[in-house]
């Protein structure tokens, strides 16, 4: 003000600064409103990974699983597929291939039992 800035301009600047601060607080990880969103995103991210690990960890003992267990695993692979297709291109390349390998093996064991 001492440099001749009109009071209404000062008020506008203060309002803009306040709005910016509030905006930054809202998106920062420490902000109360942001924490649940980030936690949700992380949980969702870890969710498919946990499910992937649970589903694809059974490939080594696929031969010992019952038909029902194998059908269930194939179904879980199919449910996981859209989530993996939603990943960024680099991760999608890797994880979709891995998922397909798992699913194909379980289906192969089922088919092999039918063929004998």
């Amino acid at each position, binding site marked *: 003000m001492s440099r001749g800035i009109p009071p209404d301009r000062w008020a506008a600047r203060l309002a803009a600064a306040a709005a910016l601060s509030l905006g930054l607080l809202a998106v920062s990880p420490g902000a109360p409103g942001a924490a649940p969103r980030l936690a949700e995103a992380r949980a969702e991210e870890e969710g498919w990974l946990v499910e*992937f*690990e649970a589903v*694809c*960890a*059974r*490939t*080594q*003992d*696929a*031969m*010992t699983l019952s038909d029902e267990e194998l059908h269930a695993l194939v179904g879980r692979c199919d449910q996981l597929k859209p989530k993996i297709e939603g990943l*960024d*291109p*680099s*991760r999608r*390349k*890797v*994880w979709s*291939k*891995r998922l397909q*390998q*798992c699913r*194909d*093996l379980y*289906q*192969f*064991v089922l*088919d*092999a*039992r039918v*063929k*004998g």
Partner: protein
Amino acid sequence: MGVLATALGLVLAAAAAGEDDAAKAPAVFATVELHGRIVMDVFSTKANVPAVTFDHWRHRALYTCRVCHVDLGFAMNAGETQVSAATNEAGTHCGACHDGKRLQDGRPIFRACSGWPRTDAARGCTRCHTGPNRAPGAAYEELKRAMPLDVAGYIDWAAAMRRGVVKPVDGVEGISPKRPPMKVDHDVQIRPLGSWMNGVTFSHRKHVAWISCELCHPDVFPMSRREQVRYDMAAMRLGRHCGACHVSVAFPLGTCQRCHGAESGRAVR
């Protein structure tokens, strides 16, 4: 600044190469003597970077095949993986281990693609992007001297693992699932037809020390137990069935006695 801009340009160019490029991927050259040296060049030369010469022997001494070909998504066929600077930067493919953080023998594994040339100022990208004609170097000779050899003079990786000469790691933390041990490990008897060769006893147990069920079934071996299958050596030479690995990376098909030998059926050699 110019160097950084060039590096960024190379990385972006490599990342920008499209899906269609994989279909036009050049042949991958394998050399038996070097246990599966391959040249990876789906994107590199298009981005004005020399091709990557990848040595299976260097990695196989440290990791099982399963780590890369199952957990990291490296395909068995040339050009299918589509590894690029972008995927490495994202922490997948080579970047899963080559991230500048994971340790090997107490030292960080150099970071692939990202950060060039800072991570290895002396050699920059050429640590991997050497072009197709790189000499194997002293490291290979040193490894071979320390390893058990088979009757044909190739490294006997199975014996090396059995004797503890190599102790390949079987997973990457945060990427590999915790797997139970394989419970069904029956041998498969394969009878020779119209040949004077001995039969083959295929041991699942020996193979699963390195690889996983889903790596072979159903892509490489789609048949069930009772199906009549004719394994053809000519087809194997083209990379089918056993030839998927035993043309170059694992001991080559010409080492007949390692499969057709009288002792091939024993569970423990």
